[in-house]
């Protein structure tokens, strides 16, 4: 593939490195002299010191034969315009844009960018992954019907959960509560029998009320 990368901050630099290593042809467009030199010193002459949002620059960069443009500057307006120009003026098959300001994500999609990467989402996801299990959204509930006290709720059995290995029979179901369904880590339904064991990654779906949710959730995610 021939890939154009707009912007050579940390993301652009690492993308270039990865794409080159996997055998692609890469050209980085970066107007800033310091960032431009960083790429050239590391990877040889695979960069142009120029503004990649300009139609003339893109043409010089061979956008007409490029398969993909990835815009990863710190400025959303440059990322948007770079992708739009490549698409509308040169019919590039695919554009990917980094979104720095989360509110721009839906606008970018509406304006024809093929793939958007929302930096805030990525960081949040990373944070979520690094938070201990008890804090994670391993738990989900929804009312059976509007205004109903009865709710369906789902518990995801995490790695550190102390219920792994125990039998379904050993779950102390609060009053007015039933276990509806069990799924394993691959999403396959598990038969619920008294001796079925609870494994890591299982999902348990219950029907209950406000109180039973609290009790079961505390117990299952401990």
């Amino acid at each position, binding site marked *: 593939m021939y890939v154009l990368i707009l912007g050579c901050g940390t993301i652009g630099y690492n993308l270039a490195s990865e794409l080159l290593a996997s055998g692609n042809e890469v050209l980085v467009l970066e107007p800033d002299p310091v960032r431009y030199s960083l790429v050239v010193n590391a990877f040889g002459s695979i960069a142009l010191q120029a503004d990649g949002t*300009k*139609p003339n620059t893109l043409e010089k960069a061979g956008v007409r034969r490029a398969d993909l443009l990835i815009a990863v500057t710190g400025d959303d*307006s*440059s990322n948007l315009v770079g992708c739009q120009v490549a698409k*509308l*003026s040169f019919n590039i098959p695919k554009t990917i844009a980094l979104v720095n300001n989360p509110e*721009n994500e839906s*606008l970018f999609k509406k*304006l024809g960018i093929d793939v958007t990467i929302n930096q805030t989402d990525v960081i949040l996801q990373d944070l979520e992954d690094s938070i201990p299990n008890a804090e994670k959204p391993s738990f989900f509930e929804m009312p059976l019907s509007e205004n109903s006290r009865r709710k369906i709720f789902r518990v995801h059995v995490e790695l550190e959960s102390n219920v792994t290995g125990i039998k379904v029979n050993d779950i102390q179901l609060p009053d007015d509560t039933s276990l509806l369904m069990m799924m394993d880590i691959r999403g396959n339904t598990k038969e619920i029998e008294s001796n079925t064991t609870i494994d890591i990654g299982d999902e348990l779906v219950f029907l209950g009320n406000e109180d039973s949710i609290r009790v079961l959730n505390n117990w299952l995610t401990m």
Partner: protein
Amino acid sequence: MNIVIMGCNEIAVNVSEKMANQENKISIIDMHEQNFLIIQETENIKTIIGDGTDSSDLELVNISQSDIFIALEPSDNRNILAAQKVKSLYRVPIILCLISDSKKDGIYRKLGLNVISSTSLISDIVLDSIK
């Protein structure tokens, strides 16, 4: 009419001073306070420090109640982002967008933006006068 201008430069000042009166209220939004040194705030001309490409700042100038939006910042790309955002999210009836790269202006005309092409305008004058 309510007129919002993004970017406080000589054009913004000139347009504001000629248009502002009891009927036409102007709000100028610019990220850099020092750009407002060239303009005098009046009852009909307000200046707001903010980023005209950001919704929350656009709402400071009541963008959804506006009749005209004019993007006049020095960066083509910021003008293009703001104009498309205002067009798509706030449906302001008249939007003008300053673009200096003459290769870009055709692309955005085709997308339905009212482009003011400073380079084409001045080039045409130059070419006409040396014919």
